[in-house]
């Protein structure tokens, strides 16, 4: 089965205890579906209800389809500057 790697940063990496997680990817998986799967992981219950997701270095809508080659990341609340 195809998989996809989800990069984690800052507070989210601490919550899940890893800089990235690998998840199975079925055809037709959307950003929203992926978030549902991430929520089942240990430590993920403390994530906000709708964390921002980036696909290929751009913020993605919840209905965007995920491809195995996509670069996926969960983006905690940003605080640059």
């Amino acid at each position, binding site marked *: 089965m195809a998989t996809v790697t989800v990069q984690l940063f800052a507070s989210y990496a601490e919550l899940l205890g890893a800089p990235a997680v690998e998840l199975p990817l079925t055809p037709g998986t959307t950003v929203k579906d992926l978030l549902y799967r991430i929520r089942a992981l240990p430590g993920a219950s403390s994530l906000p209800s709708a964390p921002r997701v980036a696909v290929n270095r751009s913020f993605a809508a919840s209905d965007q389809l995920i491809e195995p080659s996509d670069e996926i990341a969960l*983006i905690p609340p940003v605080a640059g*500057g």
Partner: protein
Amino acid sequence: MRRVSILTGEIDPASLINEVSSPQYGAISLFVGTVREVNEGRSVSAIEYSAYKSMATAELQRILDEAEGRFEVSALVVEHRIGLLGLGDVSIAIVAAHPHRAPALDCTRYVIEEIKKRVPIWKKEHYTDGTREWVDPTRAAQPSGA
């Protein structure tokens, strides 16, 4: 001249001014963000900045594209530092040059406000009591510091 950089070394705002300086410009606007000693009443000793560097660079480029379209400012440089910064250290510098002051000033303001909303950079504050915490601007209203 347009450039964005996420770096671990010190930022030298004066060199950024030199970088955009040209006789065609009558105005250079510089914004410098530094590490403040108090945040929300807590005494800060340092701030640890981290980034999703490839996306942060891409998002900064997009912000500069928008800024150029809005303000016709094509001389625009942004440097953001990551790593452990001490009190008073420069965390960000934005410089914009234009023939006239209003577009230059509006441009730097636009760029810093968009960075605060969209660029995947995070900071963990270190407090003088030894505790550390990720800054989450969405959690509660915070003073709009740099």
